[in-house]
C-alpha cells in the first residue's frame, strides 16, 4: 500500500519547468558568437578612419587590417542576420516576446532598479523576467535591429540611399552604427556580470532549467 502511495506521489510531482526552450538557447549562443565577431571586426574597420580620438588595440580586433576586417564583418553578418531574423519571427509567432517582455511600466522599472542596486532583487522564478530584464532585453532587440539597418546604410549608401537618408546621411549613420555598438558592448558587460552573479540563470540558458 505505502509503495503504491509513494508511486502516486511520484507521478503527481511536476517535471522541472523548462525556463529556456532549446530554440532560445541555440539562437542565444549563436548570436553571442556572431555578435562578438561583428564587434571585433567592426573595431578593425573603425581603426581605418576613427570617429573619435582613439583606436582599438590590435589584440582585440579581428582581421588584421581594413580588408581583413571587412571580410570578417561581411561574413559574420550572415550568421547574425539569419539567426536574428529567425529569432524575431519565432519570438513573435510563439508569443514568447509578448509573454516575457511585456508589460514594461516606468514604476516597475524604477522599483526593480532600486532593488537591483541594493542587491535585493529576487530571482526565485527564472521563468519570469523582472522589469530591468524586460527593459534591457526588449531594448537590446531594438538596438540590434537599428545596428543592422545602420550598417547596411553605410555599406551601400548609393543602393540604399533612402535608408542612409533616414539615418541622417552617411556621416551621421556612421555615428549611429557606432553608438549602437557601444550600447551593445555596455549591455554585454552588464549581462555577463549579472549572469555570473546569478549562476542559475546561466545554467538555464545552457541546459534549459
Amino acid at each position: 500500500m505505502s509503495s503504491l502511495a509513494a508511486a502516486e506521489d511520484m507521478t503527481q510531482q511536476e517535471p522541472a519547468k523548462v525556463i529556456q526552450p532549446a530554440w532560445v538557447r541555440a539562437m542565444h549562443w549563436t548570436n553571442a558568437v556572431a555578435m562578438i565577431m561583428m564587434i571585433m571586426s567592426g573595431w578593425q574597420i573603425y581603426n581605418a578612419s576613427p570617429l573619435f580620438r582613439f583606436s582599438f588595440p590590435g589584440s582585440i580586433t579581428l582581421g588584421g587590417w581594413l580588408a581583413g576586417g571587412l571580410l570578417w564583418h561581411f561574413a559574420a553578418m550572415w550568421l547574425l542576420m539569419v539567426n536574428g531574423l529567425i529569432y524575431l519571427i519565432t519570438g513573435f509567432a510563439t508569443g514568447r516576446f509578448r509573454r516575457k517582455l511585456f508589460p514594461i511600466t516606468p514604476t516597475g522599472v524604477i522599483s526593480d532598479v532600486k532593488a537591483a542596486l541594493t542587491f535585493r532583487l529576487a530571482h526565485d522564478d527564472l521563468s519570469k523576467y523582472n522589469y530591468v530584464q524586460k527593459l534591457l532585453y526588449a531594448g537590446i532587440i531594438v538596438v540590434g535591429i537599428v545596428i543592422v539597418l545602420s550598417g547596411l546604410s553605410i555599406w551601400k549608401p548609393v543602393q540604399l540611399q533612402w535608408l542612409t537618408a533616414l539615418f541622417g546621411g552617411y556621416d551621421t549613420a556612421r555615428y549611429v552604427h557606432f553608438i549602437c555598438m557601444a550600447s551593445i558592448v555596455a549591455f554585454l558587460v552588464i549581462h555577463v556580470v549579472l549572469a555570473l552573479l546569478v549562476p542559475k540563470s546561466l545554467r538555464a540558458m545552457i541546459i534549459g532549467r
Partner: protein
Amino acid sequence: MGRMRKLLIPGVDKKLLVKDAMKVMPDLTRRRFISAGASLGALTMLTGCDVVDSDSADQFLAQVSKFNDAVQAWIFNPDALAPTYPESMITKPFPFNAYYDLDDAPEIEGKDWKLEVRGLVDNKKSWTLDELYKLSQVKQVTRHICVEGWSAIGSWTGTPLRDFLKLIGADTKAKYVWFQCADKEGYNSPLDMRTA
C-alpha cells in the same frame, strides 16, 4: 615599354602580377551564384582548424565575399546613381589622403603627362591633358566615400568614362577597367565594367 616599367612595383613581374590579381577577381556572371552558395557548406571547415589566421579561413572568407557579390548582383539596381548635392555642401578643405604627407607628393608636369591606353581597345593612342579637355565635359557634386569610412562632398568635372570607352572602341564585354595613377608607386585599382 621602358616608361611603363617605372610605374609598376619594382621587382614584380607585371605579367604574373596581373595573373595573380585575375585569380582573386570575382566572376560577375550570375551562374557563379549557385557554386559560391554551395560552398558555404564549407562552414564545417571552421571546426578543428585555426579559425582566424589560416589559409582555410582566408579561403572561406574569399568564398563568402564571392557569395556577397552574387547576392548584390541579384538584388541591386545596376543603374542606381549616387545622390548629388548643392555646391554649398562641398567639403572645405577637401581631405588629402595618402600614405605620404602632402609635401612628399610627387610632382607631375601637366603638359608632359599623357594618359596611356592599353588592353582590349581599338584605339591605343595616348592622350595629353589638352586633348582630354577638348572632349565633352560633365560636372557633378557627389559624396566621395572612401572604403576606410571617411567621406567628403566634392565637385568632379571631366569626361564620363563611359563616353571615353566608347570613343576609344573599348570592348565593353570585358569585366574590368583598370587604372593606374602617376603617383609614387603607381597606385592602381580596378573598376567593374557595369559601374564604368
